């Protein structure tokens, strides 16, 4: 905290003298004690707020960065990560297979059905003239020719 060099005469010195006159601004009396108790309070509420997941991630991080056996831990974490990724990919594949085998409509099939819907409706109307006569309001929609 020592000043490094004696300052020679010059106008810059005057500004520096003025700045030194400003001096340190000490906190008000009793401030530090209150500050500390507020700090404790905030720490407690922060701990309560933090989710279980956050705590888990923090603990993993602390464990990883602790100096004892850091390399080994990082390698273990890497292997763990790869296994997790593999599991996720595998689960996705299985889910896709299940969807296909259960007959779920794929997006492309769905689009094709929507496009062919007007012609299907027209065919349906033509094959049932009696029903059309009873319910004329159903035929109000103009059909594309």
């Amino acid at each position, binding site marked *: *905290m020592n000043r490094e060099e004696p300052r020679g005469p010059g106008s810059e010195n005057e500004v520096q003298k003025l700045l030194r006159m400003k001096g340190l601004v000490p906190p008000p009396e009793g401030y530090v004690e209150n500050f500390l108790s507020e700090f404790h309070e905030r720490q407690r509420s922060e701990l309560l707020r933090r989710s279980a997941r956050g705590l888990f991630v923090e603990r993993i991080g602390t464990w990883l960065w602790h100096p004892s056996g850091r390399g080994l831990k990082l390698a273990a974490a890497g292997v763990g990560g790869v296994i997790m990724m593999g599991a996720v990919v595998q689960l996705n594949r299985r889910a896709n297979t299940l969807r296909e085998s259960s007959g779920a409509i794929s997006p492309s099939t769905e689009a094709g059905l929507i496009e062919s819907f007007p012609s299907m409706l027209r065919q349906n109307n033509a094959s049932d003239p009696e029903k059309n006569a009873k319910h004329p309001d159903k035929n109000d929609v103009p059909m594309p020719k």
Partner: protein
Amino acid sequence: MSACSEQTSPAQEDQILVARSQNGDTAAFDSLVVKFTPKLYGLVYHMTDNHEDTHDILQEVFAKAYRSVRRFRGGSSFYTWIYSIAVNMTLNFLKKRSRNRRFALGEEGTGGGQKAEPIEPVATDDTVREVSNRELKERLNVALQKLSNEHRAVVTMFDIQGMPHAEIAKILSLSEGTVRSRLHYAHQQLQNHLEDFRK
């Protein structure tokens, strides 16, 4: 804490407290808070010019230090480490504050400090002589608030807190040359602002 201070230097004392904090001793971290709060208060207050902001920033600084004290490897002193957290958090806060002010003023803000009233040119030499020391200090505060955040940080650390160039360079992750040139520029700016009072 007082027992060990008789045999060890302040830096070593900090090291002991840090090691104890890293092992989960919250009382040791409290001692660090009590020790560094007054020093950091002066630093942050000179940069923000606002007591409430200073208080909030310091709470955040110690919360961050508490969260990451286990990762502190002792590459620098705890003093340098906590100062760099405080300076960086204050600079980030000031950036946000000036951005919000500019936004609130419809992009017409000056980007200066909150109390930065314009310095009117003083008419005669007589009036200049009548300006008291207190008024001069007030003018100096205004002039300081007109500096950029980075320049104000350097001036606060060097001129007000009496820190050496090398320490400031470490805290701000700059070269000593950059610190010196920023100081020189800041002093020139302050001289220009106070020109009328120095005559």
